């Protein structure tokens, strides 16, 4: 039975031939991918593979040198404000307004997101309870731990209930309880069938647990994409783990053995 093509306005994210460069150095080359409705898409790659550059282009921090970015059918490069309004973003590093308290910061975010007092307050209360944020809400961000800052960023991304979440290593610095909450929140988030999540990580276990499909980036190029089953069939066969698939696709499996050997014998 033929599958009806999706309405472009219902597709959370489409990248077409996206290229990002910093001066002469190319970071992402001709990247095309789609985050479908109801899907958590995992973007995997080693350090420097181009994951963060891709995400920065999507959220408007970096101007791509070529390609298209569409958020629910909107051209994110031309109509960036409308596209940004539909995105919740957690950056890789917690660069926040250090002189504000989390409550002051989130009030600013809620204002920019055109939220009303009742909804914004209700959501903050429930997220703060979930992440066990109490007095930290009124302390300057500069004085908070990395884990607490990460929680504030996550709340900032979820506050306006955006239809697309773009998360760059969102579980960094979180305690195990908060990691579990975040995973469950993401799974419930896409369960409605019309939201989407782009999730960058280099933790294979997390990607295996959460993502319906993954894309493997290596030196700015997409080496493979699909469900875990499809990638297993294509690359490794049998019951290979995502880590093995990743290493084979990025041709790092031999390199890993050589690197381990280069450490020599452990000191006795």
């Amino acid at each position: 039975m033929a599958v009806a093509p999706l309405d472009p306005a219902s597709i959370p994210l489409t990248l077409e031939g996206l290229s990002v460069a910093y001066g002469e150095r190319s970071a992402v080359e001709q990247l095309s991918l789609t985050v479908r409705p109801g899907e958590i898409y995992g973007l995997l790659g080693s350090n420097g593979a181009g994951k963060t550059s891709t995400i920065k282009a999507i959220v408007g921090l970096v101007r791509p040198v070529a390609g298209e970015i569409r958020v629910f059918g909107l051209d994110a490069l031309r109509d960036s404000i409308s596209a940004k309004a539909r995105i919740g973003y957690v950056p890789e590093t917690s660069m926040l307004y250090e002189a504000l308290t989390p409550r002051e910061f989130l009030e600013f975010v809620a204002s920019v997101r055109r939220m009303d007092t009742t909804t914004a307050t209700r959501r903050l209360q429930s997220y703060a309870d979930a992440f066990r944020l109490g007095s930290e809400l009124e302390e300057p961000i500069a004085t908070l731990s990395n884990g607490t800052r990460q929680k504030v960023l996550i709340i900032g991304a979820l506050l306006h209930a955006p239809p697309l979440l773009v998360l760059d290593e969102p579980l960094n610095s979180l305690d195990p309880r908060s990691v579990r909450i975040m995973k469950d929140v993401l799974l419930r988030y896409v369960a409605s069938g019309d939201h989407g999540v782009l999730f960058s990580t280099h933790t294979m276990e997390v990607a295996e647990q959460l993502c319906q499909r993954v894309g493997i980036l290596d030196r700015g190029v997409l080496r493979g994409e699909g469900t875990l089953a499809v990638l297993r069939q294509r690359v490794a066969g049998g019951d290979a783990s995502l880590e093995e698939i990743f290493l084979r696709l990025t041709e790092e499996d031999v390199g890993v053995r050589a690197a381990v050997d280069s450490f020599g014998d452990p000191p006795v």
Partner: protein
Amino acid sequence: MSWREARRLSDVAFTELSLQAVYAFRQGNVIPAGPSKNLVARARRRVFQSKFVISVVLGLIALGAAGLIHLKVVTDPSTFAAVPAGLFESGVLTGLFSLDIALLWWTGVQVIPTLISSGVLPALEPLPIDRRTLHQVAGILYLRLFDLPVLTILVLTPLAVGFALGPVAGLASLPGTVVVVVYALALSLLTGRFFLRQVQGSRGGGGRTVVRWAYLVLWLVPAFALFGFITAAPQFFRSLGDLAAQGPSFDGTLLVAAFPFSFAALPALAAGGTEPLAIFSPTVDLVLGVSVSLYAALAVWSIVWLAGAVRNLQFLPTRPPVDLAPVSSVLRPTGFARAVLVKDLRIASRTPGYAFLILLPILDAVAIGLLTYASPLPDALAASLALAAVTTAALLATFFGPAFFAIEVLAYSYGRTLPLSNRSVLLGKVALICLMYVVASIVIVGFTIARFFQPVIFVAFILVELPAVLGAAFVELGLLFRWARRRGLAITNLYSGAWFAIAVSIPGLILAGLPVLLFELTRSSGTELALGVMALVAVAELAIATPVALGRGAS
């Protein structure tokens, strides 16, 4: 490890500190593209320029003081006839020492928060460096914040005094100069620690915001030293003359014992003997000897305290004491421009650099307002002074306005991902500039009502000037947005982009100043006509500036 190793490490740490001060990348700025070698060189150059400017000001003050003493002695002995020569010299040097302390302290107030938040020393701690070397690095790093200004004071003050009063007097100024430097460095650190806990680490909430702003007013007092001294100088010398005429008194003895007068008297004594001060107290030698010894002992204690406190500066807990007050999780979202305005005010309430820019026009208005209120000038002249104060508020708000764009550098890599147009940011900044102008103007109106009870002319003047201030703010910020778009946001950082901010201030100052100039030129034909001309020009400026600023470049 050796001092040599400590110096080498402090050089690396200072480079890191300069980079952070200039590019603010730990606070979320995007690092400008380009070779890192160039960025490092530029950061070091900017930091040197900042220290150089302060040093030039300190040098000019020292030379000015010497010139004042020299001119009085050589060419015009009658100007301060009531003040004996030795007292006059002591008075001038008291001013010089006070200004040196104030300016050094103010420099410290600006840079110490950056030193604390940079974390460069904690980054060295896990490395195999012994504690002694780490402490030496901390000390060297702290001194390098002040090196050029301190060197200027230590070298130029004795030279300038020597030029004015002779080489022996120059040498006699050295103890006072050293004590002044030590006190300024200690005060900087003391207030830096205070700032860390009470301002930067202060929790949120309306009441605490008010307390923070009150602290920041205190924080800015040193910046007003120059202004205050110039304003108060004639009265100070008049009081010296009165005290001298009065003969020996408790007040005179108190003056001799007060800091920095006791140290300022030493060069005068070296040049002319104790006779001039004997007017105040028959036991002046004893009073002077005891007070100088006590202040010197306090300076020695300050050095010991500094050495200990500098070591721990970056390892201080930034969290305030546990506060059991209930925490609010209520969010009250507002419109875009207001959200930007409130965010900027909240950031400024924990950032002395920005608080200084907001409070300066307002405190300036308070100072001139007080002067207007208490001045013995005829009403007409005092009224002119009040109008000049409104103009100053408009010009200061316009001049400092572009600096607020630098707040956008903070957390830039997050802020740009929000659906917030440049136009909304621009409107928020314009609102802040206007708020500064309006608050300063209301202060002046308050004082003028208290004295003349004729507020109509002032209110009319303020309202008529408002469109010009708005137009100037639109033009300045519109230009900054366009430049930032082309050359990267770092141009708007206070340190790396000061020249851009000054450059865009020029058309802004012209726009804000033109209506006032026309008012003055046409005033002789009647105040109403002059206000009409002023209003016409101000509205025309706003009408032209708004579409230019809110056009394509700012959308």
